């Protein structure tokens, strides 16, 4: 294999990686949580979510009462279990939705809105 072939092969691999990354959609469960008024209290929710095998990332926004848990690629997070976890931490889930965004993207959007 000459240098040109190696260069082309490398380029194809790089393009494939970029395409596969952008095609993969991150799924995040986003809950609006009643009663979550202090960081000290919300810490329990964050720690328990991060302890789950299926959790990729967690974002908490106290002002907007939002807890977002990004699910790892190829894994699932049961919405009922997610609600139960927050309930067990002492809070109530007022609304829950699944969005195709990362926790970091949700954080950026919320900071922009603010």
């Amino acid at each position, binding site marked *: 294999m000459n240098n040109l072939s190696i260069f082309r092969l490398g380029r194809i691999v790089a393009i494939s990686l970029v395409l596969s990354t952008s095609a993969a959609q991150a799924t995040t469960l986003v809950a609006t949580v009643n*009663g979550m*008024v202090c*960081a*000290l*209290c919300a810490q*329990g929710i964050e720690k328990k979510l991060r302890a789950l095998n299926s959790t990729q990332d967690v974002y908490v926004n*106290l002002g907007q009462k939002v807890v977002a848990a990004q699910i790892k690629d190829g894994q699932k997070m049961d919405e009922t279990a997610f609600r139960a976890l927050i309930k067990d*931490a002492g809070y109530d889930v007022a609304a829950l939705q699944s969005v195709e965004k990362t926790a970091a993207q949700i954080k950026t959007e919320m900071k922009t809105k603010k």
Partner: protein
Amino acid sequence: MNFVRCVRLTCVAAAFCIPLANAGPMGFSGSTMSMGDFGPNWRELFANHALTSRDAVGAEVLFMRSDDGRREREMAGVTYTRLVSRWNAPDSQANVWFVGGVSAVRGNDFNGTRLMFTPGIQLDYETTRVYVSALGRLYRARGINHDYGSVRAGFSFWEAEYDEIQPWFVLEARRMRNLSDKPEITPMLRLISKNYFVELGVNTARQARFNFMYVF
């Protein structure tokens, strides 16, 4: 080593020997919380472990002194904390807590050690900007009545992000029967983060106070 000293050492060890890893009297399920309240007439160290989201068991040591500095009490014991009821609203939370304990107490005006019972109720209401609470707790042993009452109210200076430290102003008034002749009033600055808070203040007797809470 007498019983009080033994329990005191155990409690201090429990509070500080746990590796460094909520504002109710207990943390979230599975967490260990330590609290301290230090001033010339009142020094308290308290740690508990939340067995469930509503129940915690722990230990506490407490030193109390009368306003004139003549009478002193030392107590050490075990505690049980129960979240009796909670109301979650979109922008607020209210709680009723039971805090109770059994302690050994000794003093400089009586001989030996006595068994003390310390049941109490705490009520609190909190938003991201406002906090109010009231605590009533009995401190009863044979021939001793040091029932305790406190009220607290505070506000945060601004909203903070979850990962930021939020400063609060907190005003506390408290009194202990047969030790304080008048309520102790302390304005304090509270800095709260997601796993700790510290409070610094000077009371109306010009005594410095320092409080902390840390959740592991």
